[in-house]
C-alpha cells in the first residue's frame, strides 16, 4: 500500500532540475551583473558629485571674493583677501579656521600665483588637486583664473 502511494507522487526529473538550475543561474548572473554595474556606477557618480560639489563651493567662494576684494597678499600656497586667509590645513581647504571642503574630500596640493601684469590689480591663478579620502588614487583638479575688478575710479 505504502509502495503504491510513493509511486503515485510525481517528482522532478533530473533534466527538469538541471534546466531549472541553469535558468536560475542565468537570471542570477544577469541580475548580479546589473546590480554590480549599478553599485560601481553609483560609487563613481557619488565620487564625481563629491568632487563637483567641492569644486563648486571653492570656485564660487574664491571667484566672488577675488573679483570684489580690495587687499590681497598672494604667496605660493596661501591667499589673503581682505584679511581672510585661504589655505590648506590637514588636507582641508580652509577660510581662516572654517573648513570649506567636505570631510570625504582631501586637498593634496595647492599652488597660487599672481599673474596680473597690472601692478594695481591682482590676477589669481590657483590650482588645487582634490582626492577621495577613502580612495586616494581618485583625484580631480581645480584650475581657477580670476582677476580682481577695478572698483574705485575717479575722474
Amino acid at each position, binding site marked *: 500500500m505504502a509502495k503504491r502511494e510513493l509511486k503515485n507522487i510525481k517528482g522532478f526529473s533530473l533534466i527538469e532540475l538541471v534546466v531549472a538550475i541553469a535558468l536560475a543561474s542565468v537570471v542570477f548572473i544577469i*541580475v548580479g551583473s546589473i546590480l554590480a554595474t*549599478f553599485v560601481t556606477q*553609483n560609487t563613481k*557618480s557619488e565620487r564625481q*558629485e563629491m568632487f*563637483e*560639489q567641492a569644486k*563648486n563651493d571653492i*570656485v*564660487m567662494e574664491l*571667484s*566672488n571674493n577675488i*573679483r*570684489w576684494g580690495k587687499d590681497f597678499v598672494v604667496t605660493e600656497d596661501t591667499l589673503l583677501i581682505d584679511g581672510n586667509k585661504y589655505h590648506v590645513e590637514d588636507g582641508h581647504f580652509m577660510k581662516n579656521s572654517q573648513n570649506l571642503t567636505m570631510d570625504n574630500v582631501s586637498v593634496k596640493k595647492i599652488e597660487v600665483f599672481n599673474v596680473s601684469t597690472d601692478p594695481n590689480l591682482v590676477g589669481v591663478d590657483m590650482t588645487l588637486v582634490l582626492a577621495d579620502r577613502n580612495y586616494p588614487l581618485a583625484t580631480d583638479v581645480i584650475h581657477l583664473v580670476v582677476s580682481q*575688478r*577695478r*572698483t*574705485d*575710479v*575717479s*575722474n
Partner: protein
Amino acid sequence: MKTRKNQKGAVTLILVMLMAVLIVFLIAGWQSRLLLSLHRTRALSDILLLTYHAESKIYDILARFLGGYPNAFDFPFTSDEVLPDGTKLTTTGKEEGNLKTLTVTTKRLFGTTNLEITKEETETESEFLHDTHIVMSLDCTASMGEKACPTCSTSRMDEQKKAVLNFLNELETTEGHERIKVGISVFELKSDWLYTSYAADGTPTGVAVRPDSPLSLNDIRSAVNNGFGHSGDTGSKACRKIFTYTSVGSGLAFMHDYLRTTATENLDQVEILITDGVPNQRIPYSPCPENIFCPGTPGLCGSVPGWSCLAGKSGSACTPYARDFLRCTLADSGTNWTGEAGAVNGVSNTGARDPEVDVYTVTVLDTPSSSGELENFNKVTSIFDTYSTEYYPLSEADKLSEKLKLILEKIITKVNRYQIKRVVPTPIR
C-alpha cells in the same frame, strides 16, 4: 493538484513584484541623483551668466559716466529688460545730494546677482585731486587798453592781469595745489607762450610759462607782472611778436596743440580763454577748414613769414572765416559744427578739441553801438555758449577776477569718484 499550481503562481508573482520594486527603487535613486547633478550644473551656469551680465551692465554704466555722458540717466528711474538668453535685468537709479547710486540686478531660475555703482562728486581733497594742467590764453589785442568799465580807472588789460594774479593766489591756498600746473599763453593774430623775460622789442629771453616748465607760482606771478602792461598789443612785452587784430581760434589752436603732446591717461587738462573782442581773422590750421590765412587787415598780407593771402581773402571778408575758425577750435571732436555763409558755407565738420579737455571761456563785450555789431556779438556769444564746457559772458572787465575764481572752483571740485561693489542680498527670515 490544482492547489499546488496556484501556490507556484503566487510564488512567481511575489518574486516578480519584488524584482519590480527593487528595479523601481534603483531607477528612482539613479534618476534623483541625475536630477541633482543636472540642477547643480545648471545652477553654476546660471551664476556664471548672471555675473557676466551684471558686470557687463555695470561697466557699461561706468563707461557712460567716464565717457562724458553724465546726463545719460534720468534719476530716479527703474528699467527692466529680458536679455536674449532669458536673464531678467533690472537697473534702478536714485540720487541723494551729490550721490548717485545705480543698482543692477540680474535674475535667473537658480540665482540672483546684485551689483551697485555709486557716483559721488567730492569736495576738494588733496588725496583725490588729480594731476591737472591748466593752460590760459589771454587776449593781447589793442582793445584791451580800453577802460574796464565806464566808471573804472583801470584798463581791461589791468583787470585781466589782476584776475590772473588772483587766480594764482587762490590756487596757492588750495590744498594739494602742487598737483595743478599752470601755463599762460597770449593771442592776437598768432599765439605764443608768456615768457619769464623779454628783450625790449618783445623777443622772449626767458623760460616759457608752460605747465611742464619748472616754474613756481612766484615765478609765474613775476612773469605776469613783467609781461603785461597797461594795454595790449605793443603796450605789453608779451604781445609784441604776435602781430595784431583778433584770431580767437589761434589761442585755442595753440592750447590744443600743446595739450595734445602732453596728454596722459591720468592727467586732467583744462583750457581757459579770455577775450574782449570778436574774431575777425584766422590762421592756417589743418584740422579746421578752410585751411587759409585770412588776416583782419590787408596790411598783414605779406607781413607774416610763410603765410600769404588768397585774392579777396583779407579784411572784412575774413570775419565769417574767423567765426568758423572759432567754431572749429572750440568744438570737440565729437561735436559737429556747420560753416556759415561766406566761409565754410553750410558744410558740416567736427571740432578740433579733444573731448577730454575742458574749455572755459570768458568774454568781455561792451554794449554794441549798432545793429550790425549787435548781430555780430550775438553770433559770437552763441558760438561760445554752444561749444564751450562753460561760458561766462561779461560786459565789464572788472568782474574777471570773480569769474576766474569760479572757474578754479569748478576745476578743483570736479572730482568724481565711482565705486563698484557687490551687494549680498539679505536672507529672508
